């Protein structure tokens, strides 16, 4: 990720976050062992990341069985070819959750019945502004970090939060979000872009810590 971290961007980029993203010695050790064919290392990696991976898949798929299939598919694909993950590009946790997200969205798109069940939850977009319920992410994330992510989400303008929720949690394409919300496609694209930018500007210093906190707290 060196080339990306070094890439020019808006003022005030956080080199600290970038360097934190690139390094998690425990993960790197496990990944190296997996490259060497060590099955127990994959088990250890699953013990670190299985819970956040399953939680995200379950949220998107809204179906325990499909979420399990997604998680197994992701970890098995990583086992089959661990070089798919390039440490230079960022933290393992970020890479893994991105993969879980994409696979979950693909699964949702294959299962229209699941999609229908997902709509209401994704549409309200209020889940982020609500205080976390008991047993929520606290175990997997530092309380402070998780709280700040929630705060940042809660402070997004509602239309940006809704657009991001429909896409990220609902698995809808931008075109579908435009149809669902009755706004032009260009507006939807702009809302998602701006929403992500805002979150990044607020969360930037935390993102590196966050990425390594998935596993570290377990």
């Amino acid at each position, binding site marked *: 990720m060196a*080339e990306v971290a070094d*890439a*020019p*961007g808006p003022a005030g980029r956080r080199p600290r976050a970038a360097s934190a993203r690139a390094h998690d010695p425990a993960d790197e050790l496990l990944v190296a062992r997996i490259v060497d064919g060590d*099955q127990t290392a*994959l*088990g250890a990696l*699953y013990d670190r990341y*299985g*819970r*956040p*991976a*399953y*939680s*995200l898949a*379950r949220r998107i798929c809204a179906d325990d069985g499909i979420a*399990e299939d997604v*998680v*197994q598919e992701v*970890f098995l694909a990583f*086992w*089959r*070819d661990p070089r*798919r*993950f390039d440490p*230079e*590009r*960022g933290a393992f946790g*970020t*890479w893994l*959750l*991105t993969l*879980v*997200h*994409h696979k979950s969205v693909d699964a949702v798109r294959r299962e229209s019945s699941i999609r229908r069940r997902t709509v209401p939850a994704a549409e309200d977009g209020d889940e982020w502004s609500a205080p976390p319920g008991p*047993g*929520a*992410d606290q175990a*997997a994330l530092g309380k402070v970090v*998780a709280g700040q*992510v929630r705060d940042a*989400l809660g402070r997004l303008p509602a239309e940006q939060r809704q657009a991001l929720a429909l*896409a*990220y*949690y609902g698995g*809808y*394409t931008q075109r579908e979000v435009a149809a669902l919300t009755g706004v032009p496609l260009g507006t939807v*694209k*702009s809302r*998602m*872009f701006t929403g*992500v930018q805002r979150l*990044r500007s607020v*969360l930037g210093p*935390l*993102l590196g810590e*966050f*990425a390594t*906190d*998935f596993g570290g707290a377990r």
Partner: protein
Amino acid sequence: MTQQAVGWALHALEPDEEMAVLLHLPHCASCRAAVAEAESVLSALGGVVAAAEPPPALRDRLMSAVAQTEQRPVPAPRVEQPEPTPVPVPSYPSDGRRHRLDEEDRAGRRPSWLSSRGRKLVAASLAVVAVLSVGGLAVRATQLEQQRDAESAQAEGLSELIARLDEPGTKHAMLAGADNTMVAAVLLDSGERQVYSLGLEANPHDHTYVLWGIKPDAAPVPLGTFDVATADQGSRPVGAAPQTEDFAQYAISIEPGREAPSSPTEVVASGQVEV
């Protein structure tokens, strides 16, 4: 395009848009940075969903599957090559429309960062785009659903072909046109050389396409002729490929007449070979 990069990170683009971003990213550091940053932000969102404990049986199933799954063999270390070896520009006629091969060092090589996520996506997107015809890249997901059955036979063949991109030992080259749009691919496998048209225009009957192999410090070698009919997006074998074929680049030219000349007249696409 940066806005599209965020949509790409969200996995929320339509297939045609996704393909366009995929082809754009290797050439644009700022969009790659935008994707990386968006993925970092979005994975943070992914981490604050209500936590759910995976059932213990899932771990058992996973480890059982792992025990039965062989890892992909480590690719043989690449022979250290003076890369990128500047390929001399063949002496094409001074035609302003030709695509300069010496631009390929900048644009033709797919960077390694794409290999993890991009290869799968390339495979999927290419299959979709190619099957549904690239005449217009405006392929919509709904159309895909409707056409999937009718096209499934062709799609399977195409998917298989594209899947071979990931097989060890399969060489390939993605050939881009003058505007950096990928218009064709060349695949080499087991002595078979396939040219795979993604966006080549139909050639007039009194013209032919010619595939060229290019090595550093050597004149381009004509490898065979082929035609592209209207809406013809499939693959075709072109010439015979010895197992030892080791061109650094391939190029496609359009030529008057039906025979390959000794040197290309108008290069319409070119790209470097990757293993």
